[in-house]
């Protein structure tokens, strides 16, 4: 007798267009202010810059209208704003470098070019990847790709050691950091593998000390991939990426198995590993020294492996104080690599604590929209992929900003969307495109034809409808409790033959907890509902 009635969801493209105005405004105004602050005059090419960035953002917006009309309307504006803030700061630092005749003076123009390339690739992802579940077919391809990408810098003649880390690949004039792309491939592999093996991982196996340990043959492949990545990264001295992959691994494993024990095991492994690494590898131990005793004179002036860069970054941030020196008025060029690893310190100096917290809040919203997408999407693979990608963004930011502000040891990663660097920008725009693609799936209302009258299985109305008080609150789309057994047609939900729920597709949703009846019914709840769509899935545990 109960009927699930999706409340009305708007595609959100109008909202997105509206949000793009301030998002673009931040970048353009910042560009002008940086020029005014540093040189006293408006940047000569500001019109071209403004038109260029606006066109890029609008093209993505139009592609979303065509190919992912239900995509989350907040993700793109935030990414545009962050990218704009990054361009502003890189431009501002390039002015300082140009004044002092430094060779890095061209970074601003190159980052602008990378922005265009990133947007183009993000558009390609949105255009050609019509359904994120297609990626599940490439689970093992992704695994191989991730491993190849990780190993690539070690190939003689191809890899390059820059600043002590062998994480670069150079072919002709184009250099890239393959690890940035490996993180996407790994996220796809983890999601694809774990969605298949989640139950065996979660349920089969011994209990030791109250922890449910999985069977080796279930866990084996994934441990192997992760360990291989780790080993190679250790050879490359790329601590940040090792940490990032580890975090991704633990997070996705936890999502798939729903077992807190994974977090505990992960933390134990990590603390142990970090301890062993600090004692074994000189460069890891040095990082710990720098972290704990950054301001000691001896550590400060130690070369190599001193805390100079970190402390200069702290000086910069302290100089900014609460409200910052103003764009163009600080001295971010005094901090080594302030345009890449330490862009957060540069932003902290010129925009102050206020500006830095505003930027962190943008990330908070971005990540929460990504996780909201994961909650909303109906297939397990999509959940794991969206959850994993969102967490990668959050964790990468945590590792970078935590390192720069001395919350955790400094490991050297790029700040997503802000830092200078082609690989990082392209990879993160692709992450954004994937999240947009999955959110389109997550937010698209289930077509009316699915809202079938259900057999009376004795579920009280209050239970089925408990996610929202009947006819109450802000559910403006709801017009009232329909008569029992009456199919409800939601007016503006487009009916598409390729709707995911009908589309058994190439990748069946293999959630083993799926039952007919109550679960099937509840699954049809709209994704935008603020409550679990599959909270009943837990019954099988």
């Amino acid at each position, binding site marked *: 007798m109960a009927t699930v009635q999706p409340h009305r969801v708007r595609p959100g493209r109008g909202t997105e267009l509206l949000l793009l105005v301030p998002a673009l405004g931040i970048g353009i105004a910042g560009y002008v202010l940086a020029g005014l602050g540093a040189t006293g005059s408006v940047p000569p090419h500001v019109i071209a810059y403004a038109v260029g960035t606006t066109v890029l953002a609008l093209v993505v917006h139009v592609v979303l209208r065509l190919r992912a009309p239900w995509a989350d309307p907040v993700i793109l504006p935030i990414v545009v704003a962050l990218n704009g803030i990054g361009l502003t700061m890189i431009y501002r630092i390039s002015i300082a470098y140009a004044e002092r005749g430094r060779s890095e003076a061209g970074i601003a123009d190159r980052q602008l070019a990378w922005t265009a390339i990133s947007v183009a690739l993000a558009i390609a992802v949105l255009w050609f990847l019509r359904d994120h579940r297609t990626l599940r077919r490439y689970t093992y391809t992704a695994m191989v790709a991730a491993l190849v990408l990780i190993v690539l810098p070690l190939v003689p003649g191809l890899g390059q050691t820059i600043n002590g880390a062998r994480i670069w690949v150079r072919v002709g004039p184009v250099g890239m950091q393959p690890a940035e792309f490996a993180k996407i491939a790994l996220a796809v592999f983890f999601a694809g593998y774990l969605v298949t093996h989640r139950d065996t991982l979660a349920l089969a196996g011994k209990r030791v000390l109250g922890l449910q340990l999985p069977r080796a043959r279930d866990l084996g492949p994934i441990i192997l991939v992760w360990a291989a990545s780790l080993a190679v990264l250790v050879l490359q001295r790329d601590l940040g990426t090792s940490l990032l992959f580890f975090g991704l691994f633990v997070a996705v494993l936890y*999502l798939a198995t729903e077992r807190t024990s994974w977090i505990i095991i992960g933390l134990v492994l990590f603390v142990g590993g970090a301890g062993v690494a600090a004692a074994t590898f000189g460069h890891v131990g040095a990082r710990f020294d720098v972290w704990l005793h950054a301001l000691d004179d001896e550590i400060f002036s130690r070369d190599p492996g001193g805390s100079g860069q970190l402390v200069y970054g702290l*000086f910069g941030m302290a*100089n900014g104080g*609460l409200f910052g020196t103003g764009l163009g008025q600080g001295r971010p060029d005094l901090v080594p690599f302030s345009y890449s690893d330490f862009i957060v310190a540069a932003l902290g100096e010129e925009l102050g*604590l206020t500006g830095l917290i505003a930027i*962190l809040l943008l*990330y*908070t919203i971005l990540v929460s929209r990504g996780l909201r997408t994961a909650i909303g999407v109906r297939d397990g693979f999509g959940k794991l992929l969206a*959850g994993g990608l969102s967490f990668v963004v959050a964790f990468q930011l945590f590792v970078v900003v*935590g390192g720069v502000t001395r919350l955790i040891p400094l490991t050297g990663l790029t700040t997503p969307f802000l830092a200078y660097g082609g690989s990082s920008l392209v990879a993160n725009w692709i992450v954004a495109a994937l999240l947009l693609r999955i959110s389109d799936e997550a937010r698209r209302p289930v077509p009316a034809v699915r809202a079938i009258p259900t057999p009376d299985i004795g579920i009280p109305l209050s239970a089925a409808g408990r996610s929202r008080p009947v006819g109450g609150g802000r559910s403006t789309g709801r017009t009232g409790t329909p008569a029992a057994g009456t199919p409800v047609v939601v007016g503006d939900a487009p009916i598409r033959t390729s709707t995911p729920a009908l589309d058994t597709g190439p990748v069946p949703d293999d959630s083993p907890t799926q039952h007919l009846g109550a679960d099937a019914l509840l699954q049809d709840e709209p994704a935008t509902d603020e409550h679990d769509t599959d909270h009943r899935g837990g019954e099988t545990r």
Partner: protein
Amino acid sequence: MNTPLRRLATITLVMFVALMASATWVQFFQAESLNTDPRNVRTLYREHGNARGPIVAGGEAIASSVPVDDPFGYQRVYPQGDLYSAVTGFYSIANGRSELEKYENDQLTGRSDQLFFTRIRDLLTGKRPEGAAVETTILPAAQQAAFAGLAGQGGAVVAIEPSSGRILAMVSTPGFDPNVLAVHSTSEAAAQYRALLQAPGNPLRSHAIQERYAPGSTFKLVTAAAALESGSYTADTAVPSPTTLTLPQTSATIGNFGGSSCGGEQVSLAEALRISCNTAFASLGMTLGEDALREQAERFGFHDPELTVPMPVVESVFPSGLDPAQLAQSAIGQRDVQASPMEMAMVASAIANGGRLMTPFLVDTVRAADLTVVSKTEPQVFSDAVSASTASALTQMMVGVVDSGTGKAARINGVRVAGKTGTAQTVEGQPPHAWFTAFAPADAPRVAVAVIVENGGSMGNEATGGAAAAPIARAVIEAVLAS
């Protein structure tokens, strides 16, 4: 999978809150100590990027910042070069800063708490912050007279207005040209700094307030003051004055300058001071005792490690635990008695001011860039060094020194000058330090001055306080009285 997703969302939120907390820690709670970290060149760059306030003497800037077209934006210039180096000190990218540039830095940069509202206004109006102007108490004519008098000789002059403690002149020679240290080329500034560090006469150190010397006979003023304050002596009290005094428990003797007699086996206290009789003051010191001398010295400002003008003044010392022989030598300003030129100027100033010692100070007014007064130094009493009657008696005795005693070189037509010479033995074979401390006019003093010419200056072994130092004091007094 939604429950763990929700938990993951909570975890990411916790991570972000931790980031905000650590950013707040760095940018708010730790900011002060990071900004003042000596390794933080940013503070220096920022100060150079803003208009640093001028240092002013007699209405003229003796240090100012002029806009230049380089990354720093402003260049510090010192129009008078080494004339005021003991007052302004230097301000350098490579070598930091000294003297007023250092001790008034917060005012000059505009970072002082007193300039808080000025800063807020600059912030709101978008105006580049400007530092406050520091106006000194220096009287340029007195400074020039002292500088000219010391020309080519190592030494120092300090002149004080006795009634207020205003420092009218403060010269240390050899000085240095702060302009060469203020150059923006770090390597050049560092090279100049090294050269000055190795230069003879230690030009970077202020001899007026940072060096201590044996005060020699000028210390007899303190011994005489202690005698008068004890109540057992007047200016006319006879004191023993043998030609040579054998020191108790030793075979060493104290003689008078040039081995002369003091005019009898006993002379009056006034006469002993007029001719600077060593034997008389040595025996007087033994009679008065160590404690009486040290207490008197302390009332004049000895043993004060906290005195700042606002630059710290080195502590002057009268030793303790003396045997009678050491006491006898200390009473005439030899042995381990050590005084800065500033301290001896304070002794003269206290006597001139009827026994009340005013705390010396160099900064008169601090004005914000819009000329509003940020702070003005009010004269403060340092101590009541001697009673008015003692001061009056000492003044008469000191007038005798200049009128007809060892200080005749300080006589000025129509002005009664009170003074005391000193010729301090240093190490064997080195010419003595020539001292003169004085004030004038004796009946209504406007200036008290102390002069030291190190190692006899241009007169070498022939130097005495009367010959080498008194003319300089006279020139300074004349300059003050003429203004």
